[in-house]
C-alpha cells in the first residue's frame, strides 16, 4: 500500500512538471494553432538560469545558507525572466513572420529553434552537466515507508500554485479574456479591438514564465542542468496537452498528472523501459473514445 | 412516391434543441423550399439529411433506404448531394478539379491503375474531364475551368459548388441558400438553373432560401420551420396565407414585403 502511495507521489511530482510545461504548449496552440517544439528548451534554459544564479550566490556570498528563501526566489524570478525574454525573441524572429504561412512552416521553424538552443547550451557548457549547489536540504518527511523530500513537496506545491494562478489569470484578468478570445477566433477578436499581436506575445510570455520557473524548481529537485534535459519533458508535455485536449487549460493540467501517474504505475508493472509504451497506448485509447482529448472542445464535423 | 421521408427527426446540441420532431416527405422530381427565420433549424435539417449530423432521434429514408447514421460518402453514394451556406469549395484546386472530385464515385481508378495508367483509365479520365467541362458549361462557367476556386467571383463560386454537387449525379440535390449574396440578375439566372436541373436532369431539388421571390418563383412545395419545429407546409400560395407562418415572420417583414411583390 505504502509503495503505491509512494508511486502516486512520484507520479504527481513528474506529472506536475509535465502539466506546467504542457500549459505553455496548450496556450500557444490555442492562440496560434502551432506546436511550439522549442517550448521544452525554455524549461531547460530556466534550469540553467537557476543553476547560474544559485551557483553565483554560492560562490560570491553566503546568502544560500543564510536566506535560501531569497536566493531561491531570485533564481525562480530570473529563470522566468530569461525564459520570457527568449520566448519573446523567438516569437518575434522565428514565428511571427510565419503567422500567415502554411501550417507546418512554424513547426519546422520551432524545431530549428529547439536544435539551436540545445546546441548553443551544449557548447556553452562544453557538454558538462551543471550541478546545483546545495540550497535545499535534501532531507525528507517520512511517514512509514513513504518519503517526501522537502524540495519535492516544494515542487508539487509550486506546480499546483502555478496551475491555480494561471487558471485565475485566464479566467479573471483582461489579458486572460483576450487570450481566450484570440484562441476562439483571431479575426473576430481583432475586430473587437483586441490587440492580437500583444495577446500572442502575452501568451508566449505566460507559457515561458511557467516553463522557466518549472525549470528552476525541477533543476533544484534533480540538482543538475544539462542541455538535453528539456527535450523529453517537452515531448511528454506535448503528449499531456493532447491527452487533455490541446487548447484546453484544465486539460493540460489533467493530462500532465494523468501521464505522470500512469508512468509511475506502469514502471511498477512493466518496468521503466515500457512506461512510454504504456503512456502512448493510453493516449491512443483515450483518443479513440474521446478524439478531442479529455477536456478538449468537441469538434463536430464542421458543418 | 416520396423519394425522401423524414420521420420524427430531432437533434439536440448539448441540451439545446435545434430540431424537434420534424417529419416531412419530398416527392420525386419536385422543387421543394425550406424556409424559416434565422435559427429555425434549416441548415441543421440539411446537415442531418447529408450525414454531417446524426439525428438524436427519428429516421431518415431515401428511396426506400434508411440513410441516417450512414457515413457521409455512403449518403453521397445513395444519391444525395449538397451545397453549403458558407461556400466550401476546395479553394486551392481549380474549378475543373473541384468538379472532378464530385465525379469521384463514377470513376474507378485505383492506385495500381493510376501508376500503370492503362488505356481504359486514360479514356475514363478523359471522359470525366469532358463531362466536367459540360457540367461547368451547364452552370455557366464555360471558360473558367482552370481558374483556382478562390479566384472565382462569389456568384461563380456558388455555381461551381452546384456543378461539383451535380458531378456526384445525385437524385436529390440540396441547395443551401443558392442565391445568397447575388444581385437580382444573378438570382434570375439561378432560378433558371434550378428549373433546368429538375426539367432537364430530372432531379429532385430541396433548397433553403431567404429571398421570397426565389422561393415563390421556383418552389412547388414549401416546408416552414421555426425554432426547430415544422410549423407549416404546402403549396407556396397556401403557406403564404398560413397564420402561423405570418406570425413567425412578423417583425422580419421578409415574407410580406417580398412575397407580396
Amino acid at each position, binding site marked *: 500500500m505504502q509503495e503505491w502511495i509512494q508511486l502516486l507521489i512520484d507520479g504527481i511530482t513528474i506529472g506536475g512538471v509535465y502539466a506546467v510545461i504542457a500549459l505553455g504548449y496548450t496556450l500557444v496552440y490555442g492562440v496560434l494553432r502551432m506546436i511550439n517544439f522549442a517550448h521544452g528548451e525554455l524549461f531547460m534554459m530556466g534550469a540553467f538560469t537557476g543553476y547560474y544564479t544559485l551557483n553565483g550566490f554560492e560562490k560570491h556570498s553566503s546568502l544560500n545558507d543564510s536566506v535560501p528563501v531569497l536566493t531561491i526566489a531570485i533564481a525562480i524570478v530570473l529563470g522566468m525572466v530569461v525564459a520570457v525574454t527568449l520566448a519573446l525573441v523567438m516569437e518575434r524572429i522565428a514565428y511571427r513572420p510565419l503567422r500567415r*504561412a*502554411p501550417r507546418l512552416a512554424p513547426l519546422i521553424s520551432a524545431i530549428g529553434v529547439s536544435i539551436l538552443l540545445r*546546441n548553443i547550451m551544449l557548447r556553452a557548457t562544453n557538454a558538462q552537466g551543471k550541478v546545483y549547489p546545495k540550497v535545499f536540504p535534501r532531507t525528507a518527511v517520512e511517514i512509514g515507508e513513504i518519503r517526501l523530500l522537502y524540495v519535492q513537496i516544494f515542487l508539487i506545491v509550486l506546480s499546483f500554485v502555478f496551475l491555480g494562478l494561471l487558471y485565475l489569470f485566464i479566467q479573471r484578468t483582461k489579458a486572460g479574456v483576450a487570450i481566450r478570445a484570440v484562441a476562439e477566433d483571431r479575426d473576430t477578436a481583432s475586430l473587437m479591438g483586441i490587440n492580437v499581436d500583444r495577446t500572442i506575445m502575452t501568451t508566449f510570455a505566460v507559457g515561458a514564465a511557467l516553463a522557466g520557473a518549472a525549470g528552476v524548481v525541477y533543476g533544484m529537485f534533480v540538482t543538475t542542468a544539462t542541455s538535453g534535459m528539456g527535450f523529453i519533458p517537452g515531448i511528454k508535455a506535448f503528449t499531456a496537452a493532447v491527452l487533455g485536449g490541446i487548447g484546453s487549460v484544465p486539460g493540460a493540467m489533467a493530462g500532465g498528472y494523468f501521464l505522470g501517474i500512469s508512468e509511475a504505475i506502469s514502471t511498477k508493472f512493466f518496468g521503466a523501459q515500457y512506461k512510454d509504451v504504456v503512456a*502512448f*497506448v493510453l493516449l491512443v485509447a483515450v483518443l479513440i473514445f474521446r478524439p478531442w482529448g479529455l477536456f478538449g472542445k468537441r469538434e463536430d464535423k464542421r458543418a | 412516391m416520396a423519394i425522401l421521408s423524414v420521420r420524427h427527426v430531432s437533434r439536440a446540441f448539448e441540451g439545446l434543441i435545434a430540431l424537434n420532431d420534424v417529419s416531412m416527405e419530398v416527392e420525386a422530381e419536385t422543387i421543394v423550399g425550406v424556409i424559416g427565420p434565422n435559427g429555425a433549424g434549416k441548415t441543421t435539417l440539411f446537415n442531418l439529411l447529408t450525414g454531417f449530423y446524426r439525428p438524436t432521434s427519428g429516421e431518415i429514408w431515401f428511396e426506400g433506404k434508411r440513410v441516417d447514421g450512414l457515413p457521409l*460518402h455512403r449518403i453521397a453514394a445513395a444519391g444525395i448531394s449538397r451545397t*453549403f451556406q458558407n461556400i466550401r469549395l*476546395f479553394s486551392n484546386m481549380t474549378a475543373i478539379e473541384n468538379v472532378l472530385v464530385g465525379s469521384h464515385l463514377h470513376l474507378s481508378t485505383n*492506385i495500381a491503375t493510376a501508376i500503370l495508367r492503362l488505356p481504359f483509365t486514360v479514356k475514363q479520365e478523359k471522359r470525366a474531364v*469532358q463531362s466536367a467541362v459540360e457540367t461547368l458549361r451547364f452552370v455557366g462557367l464555360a471558360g473558367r475551368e482552370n481558374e483556382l476556386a478562390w479566384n472565382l467571383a462569389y456568384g461563380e463560386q456558388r455555381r461551381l459548388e452546384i456543378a461539383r454537387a451535380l458531378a456526384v449525379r445525385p437524385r436529390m440535390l440540396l441547395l443551401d441558400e443558392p442565391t445568397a449574396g447575388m444581385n437580382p440578375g444573378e438570382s434570375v439566372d439561378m432560378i433558371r438553373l434550378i428549373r433546368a436541373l429538375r426539367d432537364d436532369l430530372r432531379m429532385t431539388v430541396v433548397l433553403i432560401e431567404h429571398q421570397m421571390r426565389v422561393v415563390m418563383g421556383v418552389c412547388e412545395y414549401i416546408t416552414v420551420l421555426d425554432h426547430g419545429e415544422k410549423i407549416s407546409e404546402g403549396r407556396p400560395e397556401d403557406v403564404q396565407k398560413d397564420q402561423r407562418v405570418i406570425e413567425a415572420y412578423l417583425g422580419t417583414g421578409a415574407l410580406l414585403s417580398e412575397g407580396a411583390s
Partner: protein
Amino acid sequence: MKGSGSLSSLRAALDPGRYWSRAGEQLQTTTSGAAVARFGQYAVLPLLAIAGGLGPSYFGIRWTFAILVIVMYALLRSRSGLFGMVVLGAMLVYLPHQMDTFERGIMFDIALYALLGIGLNVVVGYAGLLDLGYVAFFASGAYLYALISAPQFGGGFDVGTSFWIVLPMAMVLAALVGIALGVPVLRLRGDYLAIVTLGFGEIIRIMINNQDGVTNGPVGVFAIPKPHFGSTELSGPVELYFVVLAGCFVAAFAAERIRDSRVGRAWEAIREDEDVASSMGVNTTAYKLMAFAIGAAIGGGGGVIYSAKQSAVFPSDFNLDVSINVLALVIIGGMGNVRGVILGAMLLIGLPEVLRDFSINIAFIHLDNLGADYRLVIFGAALVAVMILRPEGLLPARRRQAQFEPADVLEPEVAT
C-alpha cells in the same frame, strides 16, 4: 488538328506524371522554335554534367555542394521541369564517381532520405496527414531484412538473393503496419494525429530495444550481408546509392502518377476540406489508409536498403530525430512536390555533414573546429532562416493543376 494532337501527345509522353501538359503556351506559339530550343538544352546537358562531375576535384566538396544546390535550385524552379529533372538525374548518376568515400556516403544518405521524403510526402504533402512517427516503417523494413539475413539468427536465407525478395516483403509488411496504425487513429484530426504517430514511432523503437530474444535488443543486429545484383556484390555506398536512386525514381514516378489521378484528387480534397470531400463520395478513411500504406511501403523499402548498406542496425538508429528530419526536409523542400523533397534532402542531410569541415581562419581569428563543434547550431539557425525566407518551402508545389485543354479531350472523343 492532327499536328497539334501529336504535339500534345509528345508533350504528354515526355512529361512524366501527367498528361494534361502545363507548359502548353510556351510551345504552342512557336512550335518549331521551341523544339529547337529544347534540343539545344539537351546538348548543354552533358557539358553541365561534366562540369558538375569535375567540380569536386577543383573546388572541393563544400563549394561543389553549394554550386550543385544552386544549379539544381535554378533548374528545378525554371519552367522546363523535365529538363531540370534530366539534368538532376544525370548529375546524381555521374557525380558519385568523382567523389571520395565520405562524399559518396553523404550522397547515399541524401538519396535515402529523399526516398523516405517521397514516401512521407504522400502522407503529409498529398493527403495532409501530419505524421511524426514515420521512422516506424523505416525501422520495420530495416529489422525485417536484418533479422532474416544476419548470421546471428541463423541467416537461413540465401543472402545473395534474399535482398530482392525481402525488399517487396518489407514493403508489404510496412504497408500493413501502416494500416494497423491507421485504423484506430485516422479519425483524429491534425495535431492529435501528430502526437499519436510520434508515440507509435517511439513504441516501435522501444519494443525493438526491449525484445532481446527477437531483436537482440540494444546490442543490435550486425554482420548483415550485402545484397547481390546478379553476381556483383553491392558492397559500397556507391553501389547501394544507385539502388536507392533507382528506388527514388520509381517511387517518385509512382507517387506523381497517383497524385495526378482520381486518388490524388481525393487526397487533395481531403486535405482541403475533409468533410466536404466525404460528402462528395470520397471514402476518407480508406483514402487516408491508402496514403499511410503507400508512405509506409516506401519507408519500409528504404529501411531494407539502409539495413543492407549499414550492415549493422540498432534500435537507437530509429529514434525520433529520423522522423523529424524527414518531415523537415519535406517541408523545407516545398510540400507536395518530389523535386522539393530531393532538394530538401540535399540541404537537410548534406548540410550538417558538409559543415564538418567548416572553419574560419581570417587574420587572428582561428576557429578550426567551428564546423565540427557548431554544425548543429548552424543547422538549427539554417532551418529557421529557410522557413522565414521561404515559408512555402524552397520549391513550393507549383500546383499541378489538371489543366483542361480542348485538344486533350475532344480529339479522341471525336474519333469514337
